[in-house]
């Protein structure tokens, strides 16, 4: 199967004021693969993830230096930020449905991009919820508040909300860290299915999770990529002793 590079990061340096959070990070993210980012707390993996759809723009003191190309175009100079975020969606650590109905939550993205037709919106909502395997659970209560759902359902709703704007890439920032084991396994199954159509980059604290769901894994340490390669290699045959120590639980 021919897989092309979706996102190409080259020599990325990121500063919070004077503090350098990322050092010369380079990475190729391939189409329709799951790339897991692992590493101890504060190693810069979430910062890196948020850079990919320019969520770090929201923080005034962040300075970025280096190239990030999405579909071979620079995300800072050649992509409009709104267009970029449409293509590169993001799921957050804590489920964050908006305080409105389930339907309105899913329809929020399409609506902001100008779709007003009720029938089209209904189709999008149904399709997205089915993709996020939530449709069967909520189809009778689409107009009830989304905040009435359970945590796991809320996270799947957030995934459906991202899918509703038809992205290419889905970024996930520890999507299961606030969920119970059953909800977690459902989300993992979901990620496995979504892989067919989407490129996924996932930050996780959970080593087993990275092992279970990812094709490639990047191990971040102190703002640098310590090791990046196919997941099997990273887990069973790491080239760096630091990686081995981390994976075997010696620090973290």
């Amino acid at each position, binding site marked *: 199967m021919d897989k092309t590079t979706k996102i190409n990061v080259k020599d990325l340096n990121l500063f919070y004021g004077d503090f350098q959070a990322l050092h010369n990070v380079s990475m190729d993210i391939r189409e329709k693969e799951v790339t897991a980012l692992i590493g101890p707390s504060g190693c810069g993996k979430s910062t890196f993830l948020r850079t990919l759809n320019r969520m770090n723009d929201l923080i005034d003191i962040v300075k970025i230096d280096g190239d990030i190309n999405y579909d071979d175009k620079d995300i800072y100079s050649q992509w409009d930020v709104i267009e970029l975020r449409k293509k590169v*969606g993001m799921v957050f650590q804590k489920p964050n449905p908006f305080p409105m109905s389930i339907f309105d939550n899913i329809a929020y993205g399409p609506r902001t991009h100008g779709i007003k037709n009720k029938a089209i919106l209904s189709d999008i909502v149904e399709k997205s919820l089915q993709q996020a395997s939530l449709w069967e659970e909520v189809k009778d209560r689409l107009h009830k508040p989304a905040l009435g759902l359970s945590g796991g359902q809320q996270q799947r709703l957030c995934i459906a909300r991202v899918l509703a704007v038809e992205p290419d890439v889905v970024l996930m920032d520890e999507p299961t860290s606030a969920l119970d084991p059953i909800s977690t396994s459902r989300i993992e199954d979901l990620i496995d299915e979504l892989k067919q159509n989407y490129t996924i980059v996932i930050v996780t604290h959970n080593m087993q999770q990275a092992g279970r769901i990812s094709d490639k894994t990047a191990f971040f340490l102190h703002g640098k990529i310590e090791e990046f390669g196919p997941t099997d290699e990273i887990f069973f045959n790491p080239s760096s002793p630091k990686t081995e120590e981390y994976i075997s639980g010696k620090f973290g």
Partner: protein
Amino acid sequence: MSSAEVLNPPVSKGRKEVVSSPQSRKLRMQEKVAKGIIWGLAALTIAILVWIVGYLMVKGLRYNNMTPYNVTPYVERVIDLDGTEDDLVFIINRGVREQDIEVDGLRTLFNKRRNENWGFYNEQNLRAQPVVNENAGDFSVQVKDFILAGEDLDDYRGYVEKASSWDEVISYVGGTEGAIGFLPASEAADLPRDVKVLGVRRKAIAVNPSVLMIKDSRMLRELTDKQAEKIAAGEVSNWMEVGGTDLPLTLLDSENIEVNMEALQSTEGAVMLTDYRYVAEYGVRSVPVLRHETGWNLTWHFITEAPARSGQWGGISYIIINTFFLILFTILFSAPVGVMAAIYMVEYAKQGRLMRILRMGTETLSGIPSIVFGLFGFIFFVRILGMGIGFISSTLTVTLMVLPTIIRTSEEALKSVPQSFREGSLALGATKLQTIIKVVLPAASPGILTGIILAVGRTVGETAVLIYTLGSNYDLVSGPSSSARVLSLHLYMLFSEALSFDRTFATGAVLVILILLTNFSATFMMKRMNKNSGM
């Protein structure tokens, strides 16, 4: 032994040993004392609250006065007149709310000594229009004598309407607002629905001047209705018993008026229950009698009628409408500005020293006494901008006054919206504006609404600002520069000009009810909003 007792053997009543130590007993004692104090204070707070609101409402809803009159409270609906064959009945238009009137009132009504209005008797702003039957000859002359006793007048004054028959009098009274007329009792047997009989109070307590003299630092000022009854029944033998001086009381008959009047004038401590017209005619003194008057203060009429005579008559309908206008326009001006300022401060502005100064400024402004705002509004809007005292000046001043409140509460509401909502929206490719309008503002709306309700509360309760900028006209607001009154200002004017204590309390009750309604509706709206959003 029944089966129930077998199944549930009685539990032993004796005290069981509890494992405890001096330390734990002490702690429990402390706990109990603290709980007692907290409960006591809470109960005190609730009691004070209930007492204040209850007192205001009771005083506002009911009046309960002792009003002095020259005549006793005894009401005659059919008057037996000396020297006439037929009895006399006074009739009024159904629209007049008066039930009975003292005979002196009738005299002024038929004599037009002033701009006669029913307001003087029942606070109903309605012009009084008397009517007489020209062709009734003797009867009308006798009645004229009765009403105009002591007045040297050849005829009824010109403004009295003339009718040519009793039927015409009845139909005139029925068809004219505020009309009053009189009939022989024989003609008043079958009155139409739009005419009713007016009771008359004419029995006065005429006394020898010695009764009203000061003796031993005491003096009879007035009698209560009960005391007057006792005197009339002959149960009082000394004036001391009814609050007067030490003087034996002699009750005289009123049958042979000339003889008895002479006796009254010559006997110390003499008293006679007689028609009030003889008091004037013979130039004797009478004792004022207190009538116990009670009833509804806050009536439908009070709320719906227009105010008149500085608010002494009529109701407060215009004033309520003015209040709503003031609220409406204040919120119309202040809410958009305040919410947008808050959006700027939370969402757009760089959080630096400038913002800190701005925040401190708004906080200081919200704490400034309103009279200072009033002064500012008077100097700036009224004088410098030349808007004059009126609705627009006051609305703008109140807007400035409530703006800090709205900004502060909106700011807090916006800040309390989780950052994750904003991130979620932006990550979907929404712009900042879309995020604010579609996600942040709806999520913050209960808090923003609270701020607006607080602003409404402040506007309703504001007086000091409005004294300088709104004036005191009690008409309906007719334009941006028209002076007006709102409820709080009306209350202040009624009280400070001592126009009517009852009306002050009734206005206060309306204010309390208005604020209660505002708060209830705010709570209701917030509940609904929260239900819809699921928060």
